[in-house]
């Protein structure tokens, strides 16, 4: 808790707990470092809740207990909480705030007011979701699957409002990241030694901003269709772009942006461990920019790739496969860097390695999902859901790596090395044990989001559920390790305070 000693905050407000109330300190601060911690606290709580729901989902089909409706509400909450409140906003919110200004060599975010506003909008979105989950739970899945969502008897209003709200918050964060990056470039004209993390956050932020309008259109279509005001399936329209295509035109790039930010963070951890900060090499920057372009180009793919034309399917396949290429460049670069530097495997580095392996698994699963005709077979199967989980948990592992990286700075004490390594190992093992069986089940035709287990699939379903326990333990240990450092720092400062006077 000693920001003022080692950094010059833009707000220049002393972090004295004696004069400022907790609310002022954390909720209404313009200081990006404080906002980073507030983001981290909110994200951690949602993450734990979402993981508990996920465990329930893994076991419910096996226990053959509970109604379909309960199951549907649970997977909807699980997906919305973890995608919309953790995977998409966490890295820009937590580590963007914690690291971007320093990385770029500026004192703070370009628009501190907007930065705080983004956090407040996000909190409002969280509140909307809380209302949704407690009084009006949706049962449609986090992507509001059509045509199910159009006829669902459950109330979608709160959930849609929540998703829209956090989408707007992400766009505000994204705009701020882009502005901060551009501002720093204008200040240090000609000086190109910006770390890759800054490039990645800015590129991801731009994608978030550009994709947000699609979410708005999708939400309007969904609400209008449910109200009976419009018929999004009406034929005779020249370009028959339906609701689901608009939705994924947002969700796909937004997910891409989150992964890009996570890759930037992984690079940050790797380079710091390999002997200090280094400017990003041109080839790595190109990889990140290519990923951003492809993530955004993926949104029209969701228009053309979902028609009945074989040629469309092929071009969609080509675009989707292309995203793996720059990613492979990044991975090869990291392995080379680590190989030549042989750094000590700290907790942060192990978490980063976990993220790399998980993203690699996601990309390799993408080889199937993006290829014709295998990809068609895997649509809506548990294969597709497993692939999404590899990316999502990759982002979570990267987030953890980043938190371990900043923890000495935040708490004055580092997270215990053993805990960091152990949590990383458990997250890796748990994710593989949970979702590799899901890949196999999906390849055999197991649909996702159903209580039915494919004939003969019981053993793999059980294996996956057991893997879920390992994963939950890993994530729990990760959360505990951070909380532990926080408590240790508090204990330390409290005793210091007692001794000082």
């Amino acid at each position, binding site marked *: 808790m000693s920001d003022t000693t080692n950094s010059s905050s833009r707000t220049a407000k002393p972090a004295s707990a004696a004069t400022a109330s907790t609310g002022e300190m954390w909720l209404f601060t313009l200081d990006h470092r404080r906002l980073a911690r507030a983001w981290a606290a909110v994200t951690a709580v949602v993450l734990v809740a979402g993981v508990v729901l996920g465990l329930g989902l893994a076991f419910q089909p096996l226990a053959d207990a509970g109604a379909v409706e309960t199951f549907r509400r649970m997977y909807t909450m699980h997906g919305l909480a973890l995608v919309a409140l953790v995977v998409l906003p966490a890295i820009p919110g937590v580590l963007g705030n914690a690291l971007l200004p320093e990385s770029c060599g500026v004192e703070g975010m370009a628009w501190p007011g907007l930065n705080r506003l983004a956090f407040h909008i996000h909190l409002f979105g969280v509140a909307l979701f809380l209302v949704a989950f407690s009084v009006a739970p949706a049962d*449609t899945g986090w992507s509001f699957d059509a*045509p*199910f969502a159009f*006829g669902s*008897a459950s109330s979608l209003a709160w959930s849609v409002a929540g998703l829209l709200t956090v989408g707007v918050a992400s766009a505000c964060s994204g705009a701020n990241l882009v502005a901060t990056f551009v501002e720093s470039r204008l200040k240090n004209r000609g000086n190109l030694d910006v770390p890759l993390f800054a490039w990645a956050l800015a590129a991801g932020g731009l994608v978030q901003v550009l994709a947000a309008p699609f979410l708005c259109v999708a939400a309007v279509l969904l609400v209008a269709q449910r109200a009976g005001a419009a018929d999004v*399936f009406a*034929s005779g329209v020249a370009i*028959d772009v*339906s609701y*689901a295509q608009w939705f994924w035109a947002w969700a796909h790039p937004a997910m891409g942006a989150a992964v890009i930010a996570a890759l930037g963070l992984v690079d940050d951890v790797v380079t710091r461990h*390999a*002997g200090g900060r*280094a400017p990003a090499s041109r080839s*790595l920057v190109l*990889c990140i920019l290519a990923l951003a372009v492809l993530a955004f180009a993926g949104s029209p793919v969701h228009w053309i790739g*979902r*028609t*009945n034309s*074989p040629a469309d399917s*092929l071009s969609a396949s080509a675009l989707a496969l292309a995203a793996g*290429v720059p*990613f*492979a*460049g*990044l*991975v*090869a*670069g990291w*392995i*080379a*860097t680590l*190989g*030549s*530097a*042989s*750094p000590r*495997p700290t907790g942060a580095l*192990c978490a980063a*390695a976990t993220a*790399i392996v998980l993203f*690699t698994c996601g990309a*390799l699963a993408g*080889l*199937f999902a*993006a*290829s*014709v*005709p*295998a990809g*068609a*077979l895997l*649509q*809506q199967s548990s294969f597709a859901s497993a692939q999404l989980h590899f990316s999502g948990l990759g982002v979570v592992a990267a987030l953890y790596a980043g938190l371990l990286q900043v923890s000495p700075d935040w708490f004055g004490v580092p997270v215990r090395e053993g805990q960091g390594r152990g949590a990383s190992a458990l997250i890796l093992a748990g994710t593989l044990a949970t979702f590799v069986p899901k890949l*196999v089940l999906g390849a055999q*035709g197991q*649909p996702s*989001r*159903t209580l039915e287990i494919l004939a*003969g699939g019981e053993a*793999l379903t059980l294996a996956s559920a057991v893997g879920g326990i390992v994963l939950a333990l890993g994530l729990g240990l990760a959360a505990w390790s951070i909380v532990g450092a926080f408590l240790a720092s508090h204990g330390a400062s409290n005793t210091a305070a007692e001794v000082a006077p």
Partner: protein
Amino acid sequence: MNAMLLVQSAVGLPQASSYAASIDRAFVVTAWFAVFLAILVAGALALALFAPRRDGAESEPATRRSSKWVSTGVAVAGALSLLVLLHGSRVWADVQTVPRGALAIQVHLEKNAFAFTYPGGHVATELHMPCDRPVKLMLRGDREPYTFAVPEFRLHALVAAAQDRDAWVAATLPGEYAARSTTFPRASDAIAAATVVVHEAGGFEKWHQEVSGPPLDLPPVELGARSYQMRGCTQCHSLDGSKLVGPSFKGFLARQHVLVDQTVVEPTDDYIKESILDPTAKVIAGHEPVMPSFRGRLHELEVAGLVAFIKSQP
């Protein structure tokens, strides 16, 4: 060894179509690549992280000598993606191009239930198909998107809203399979499903003839003659006067028709029609009331044809 195939046979997902094997092969080859690359990446990382450190390596600052490696990674992944794309598109072309002379069956999804329309217009809720003969599935676009999937065939066709689409399959293993739509249906718990019956050699043609009957545009007497043959009347009714389970049709108009209560009925059109649709209403003396009702099983024109045919018997 071959994990994917091992698991497949353990679960018993047969390759029941002509292209299933080639799709599986592409899948399995990709799976091997993927497993190999995953192990390579994980192994290299583990080595970089946990291998005993060389002396002096720690102090050496990390210069970005990785550029070369970045390009290598890009090249390898690019080549692999291209391979997957090219091979995939070849198999895809196979899966997409409906062979000439395929038997055409229309697939509709109505009120969340599949309906199949066969050549000749017969509509059934089950998909019957021959073995080893390509079948063209004309998937009719519904107001809302749906999927027609049969995992054993490796067939999974997403049908966009209000757009028709053709798919094809040549089943290779006789048996029963389940087709399902995996698109989330509107506010209903059930995912649309249908039974797929792949007949043994010759079985489909027999089934198809049985359900569809003779062509309806024949002249009535001829149509009746065909129906008499195809609808199983021959089992119980002869044309040459010999008594089978039921009375012979020989000289139908010239003969007396005495019922069990000894009343005599005139062989009018209405009487013959009633005898076909509601056989137990009037039972002929000397016979058991064992004739099945044909109500709902024959087209109106077929009934009229049978009436004409029976009356025409000398």
